[in-house]
């Protein structure tokens, strides 16, 4: 009985060649990125100097002799326009590479492990506080970031970094209810629309909540008249029961693509972030947003530099670049979230601004007054237990 020992082996080898050829083609179109990958764990990495020797660099590129060859950016998904990074590279000769994370805790875990290699990270409000307490952030040298003056003073000095030693606002937003006017012609003004079983069950299977323990339990607490950060066991128990009563009529818990489900009318009412709702509205103008009368959350993502970042000066220059009016506007036009940059606001895309306005997403003083920050401390752990109970039963 003659077997063919060579053929599967040959197959493997052939496939290897094929893939290597394809990979080589891909790498020639993205050569700078390829060299990053190959040399990440090798000690002989490219030196940090080698900035372009030309004196013709624009002023915003800072001191060319201190610029690094590359900048490692760790950010949320779709939170940075690739064009902005390309523009910076073209002007200043610094290659900006971006990696993605999808939760603050993932970011915290990576920074705590140390030696992450990132120069610029974008934690949310409470995460900044955690990182500061753990000594994981590098103070910012504001002498390199004069554009910080463009930031709205009302958004500086937040509770997690009162002197803005470590952080500068990046984008911010709110959390409330997104709804479809065809199902709610008179609009929505209270959390009851989604928590009162009588009301939400009218949209049975077409309602969703965020899959986020702090936001969802917090919203329930707000509906019940308490604070987003209330850790009293009795109040938590009430919140749990409310959520369990609502669960039956929900389509589900969705933090990932509620903008899609809203736009495609797979869902008619959703607990949502303002940016996602704006995205949904840009695809389907029946989608509107409201911060209910009981209140909602305000949150802010911030630019910070890890304590062990290899290219601190370059990171500060890049931060300064992002704070310029044109780039600030370009950024928000892309992300659909709010810019903290006052100088950028006049430069925002007018259609985008109109969309926010007609969609009920803009924040005036009245709205601002009923927004709350989500805060964490040791007692916050009760939220996890409540959430486990809601999901388990």
């Amino acid at each position, binding site marked *: 009985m003659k077997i063919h020992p060579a053929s599967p082996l040959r197959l493997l080898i052939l496939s290897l060649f094929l893939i290597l050829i394809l990979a080589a083609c891909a790498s020639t179109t993205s050569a700078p990125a390829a060299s990053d990958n190959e040399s990440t764990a090798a000690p002989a990495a490219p030196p940090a100097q080698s900035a372009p020797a030309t004196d013709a660099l624009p002023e915003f590129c800072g001191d060319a002799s201190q610029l690094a060859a590359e900048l490692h950016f760790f950010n949320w998904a779709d939170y940075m326009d690739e064009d902005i990074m390309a523009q910076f590279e073209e002007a200043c000769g610094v290659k900006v590479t971006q990696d993605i994370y999808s939760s603050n*805790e993932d970011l915290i875990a990576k920074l705590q492990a140390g030696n992450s290699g990132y120069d610029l990270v974008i934690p949310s409000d409470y995460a900044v506080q955690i990182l500061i307490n753990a000594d994981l952030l590098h103070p910012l040298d504001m002498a390199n970031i004069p554009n910080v003056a463009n930031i709205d003073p009302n958004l500086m000095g937040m509770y997690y970094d009162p002197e803005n030693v470590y952080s500068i606002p990046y984008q911010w937003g709110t959390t409330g209810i997104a709804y479809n006017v065809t199902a709610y012609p008179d609009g929505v003004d209270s959390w009851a629309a989604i928590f009162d079983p009588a009301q939400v069950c009218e949209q049975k*299977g077409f309602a969703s909540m965020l899959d986020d323990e702090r936001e969802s339990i917090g919203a329930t607490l707000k509906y019940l008249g308490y604070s987003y950060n209330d850790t009293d066991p009795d109040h938590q128990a009430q919140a749990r029961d409310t959520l369990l009563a609502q669960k039956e009529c929900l*389509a589900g*818990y969705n933090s990932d693509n509620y903008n899609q489900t809203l736009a495609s009318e*797979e869902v008619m009412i959703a607990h949502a972030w303002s940016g996602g709702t704006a995205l949904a509205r840009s695809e389907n103008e029946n989608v509107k947003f409201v911060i209910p009368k009981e209140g909602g959350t305000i949150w802010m993502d911030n630019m910070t530099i890890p304590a062990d970042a290899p290219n601190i000066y370059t990171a500060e220059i890049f931060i300064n670049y992002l704070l310029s009016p044109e780039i600030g506007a370009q950024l928000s036009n892309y992300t659909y979230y709010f810019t903290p940059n006052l100088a950028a606001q006049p430069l925002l895309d007018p259609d985008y601004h109109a969309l926010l306005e007609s969609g009920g997403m803009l924040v005036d003083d009245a709205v601002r007054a009923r927004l709350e920050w989500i805060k964490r401390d040791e007692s916050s752990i009760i*939220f996890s237990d409540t*959430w486990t109970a809601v*999901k388990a039963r």
Partner: protein
Amino acid sequence: MTQRRKALLAFLLGPGAGWLLLFFLLPGALVIVYSILTRKDGGGVLWIVDFSSYVKLFSPTDGAVINDFMVIFARSLWWAALTSFVCLLIGYPLAYFIALQPAHVRSTYLFLVLIPFWTNFLVRTYAWKFILNNNGLLNTLLQDWGFERIAIINTPTAVLIGLVYGSLPFMVLPLYASIEKLDFDLVEAAQDLGANYLGVFRRIILPLTAPGIGAGIVLVFIPVTGQYIVPTILGGGKVAMLGNLLAQQFGPALNWPFGSAISVIFMLLLMSAVVFYLRSENRDGEAGL
């Protein structure tokens, strides 16, 4: 054992064992150690021994002795069992069919089974959501043909479809490896002796392919218990599974010791099941040859 054989054994076993020891057991031991340490606010651990994680795992929640964590465990095991069963139902005949094909065609079939899984898992799951959505492909077609919409998304059925879909190759491959080795002369001999096909299947084929069935069940059951993407996307995240619980503890809850404790207990449970499976296999294994 001769010196030569000892050297051969060392050569065969050494590299794999070394790799596992360094990059799997050591980190794993870290987890066991973490489970008896104290939670550090903001993630990570404080090096102070503390068994409260284990206490919490077995304490009643809201007066219920069967606490939420046990419910989630049990549910995950149930889903794993159900998925394994359905995968076996579909996968065994498929593997059998492939093994019956001429030799040069078999690997094509195997590749065809695997190719869908070389697209991204998340994308495939969202493709199913796209099909099963209330306004998805299935319902759009049904409505066009004058039928009512069926609400299949965000139900246990959708979750089962997703889980089976994601596990099928892990059942088919080991089954195929086992069935392929079957000596069909034995089958013919039995039939010549008068056995009907059912008898042949029950008394010859099934026992001889039992190792493949066992391996397939192990490769499906265990990963499914830790699954959380499919229940989240196709089930609406309404039902927490073990994977969700772990992701929550290592994530938003920033409670590494508790997450580690859950992992330790979970792995102990599964290990005992595996040990049981191995013991029973060793006893019947010889008869198969």
